[in-house]
């Protein structure tokens, strides 16, 4: 005679699917664990990759800004200021009138001593200490003529010598710095847009 328990067992056995018997429940549990964990692991990897990429982008933006702020911008403004002052007050602009010429030469000497030579010193300082901020496509060789000219001019102001004629101001340098500056600005703006 069938007891109530036997009946229960019979019902249970007859409705069991394949995955509810044997090791399958264990396998299923393990699979669920593996899948959920790998999804969350994948998410973690993705987000860390995104963070790393963003970090690199930020660092690149920082580096480009640094190149502009500590190298190209000050070089451009200092050299441009000096060139403008030379064209506005330099010896070639001295007037014909004797008295006016004396005054003009006095003004020029003051400007040379108080603005042009200190600016030149700053340019040399930047070139000597911050050349690691040069753009990848720029080279310190491009600045050799400028460096020689600045050193030679400093000596020329103390000792008048014709040796200085061998080291003229490289006319192309301001244009070159301006071009590199524009390029860096474009690169920087592009990075900011896509970030």
């Amino acid at each position, binding site marked *: 005679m069938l007891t109530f328990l036997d009946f229960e067992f019979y019902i249970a056995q007859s409705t069991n699917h394949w995955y509810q018997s044997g090791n399958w429940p264990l396998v299923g549990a393990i699979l669920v664990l593996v899948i959920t964990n790998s999804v969350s692991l994948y998410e973690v990897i993705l987000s860390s990759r995104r963070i790393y990429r963003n970090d690199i982008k930020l660092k690149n933006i920082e580096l480009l800004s640094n190149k502009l702020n500590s190298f190209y911008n000050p070089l451009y403004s200092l050299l441009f200021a000096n060139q403008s002052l030379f064209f506005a007050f330099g010896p070639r602009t*001295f*007037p*014909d009138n004797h008295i006016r*010429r004396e005054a003009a*030469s006095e003004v*020029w000497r003051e400007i040379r001593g108080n603005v042009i030579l200190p600016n030149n010193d700053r340019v040399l300082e930047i070139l000597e200490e911050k050349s690691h901020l040069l753009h990848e496509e720029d080279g310190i060789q491009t600045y050799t003529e400028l460096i020689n000219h600045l050193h030679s001019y400093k000596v020329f102001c103390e000792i*008048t*010598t*014709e040796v200085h004629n061998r080291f003229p101001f490289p006319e192309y340098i301001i244009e070159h710095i301006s071009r590199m500056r524009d390029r860096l600005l474009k690169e920087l703006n592009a990075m900011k847009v896509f970030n």
Partner: protein
Amino acid sequence: MADNYWLYQELRRISILRVNRIEELILVRNWSGNEHKIYCPDHSEYVVTIDLVQRVMEMGGDIISFPFSWCSCSMEAKEFSKRNGVLTMPHGETFDFLERWAARR
């Protein structure tokens, strides 16, 4: 181009000299008849160079007098002019030199 108007006017004030202008040079004579020919650079020649000294020599000049305030003489030009008998000096020295020279009769 010489710019000698101011120097010419100033030299004329020294009574023991006879002063004339010959093209780009100022001719000064003392009473013994000795003479010097002075060149004074213009504002484009703000550094007296060897080239300028040579040009002055070709013109027959033997003194280059320049205003100390806006002009200077290169070391090379100083040496070159000394070797070639050309005196290169600022205006102040030129006046001293000419006064002493003119007083020697």
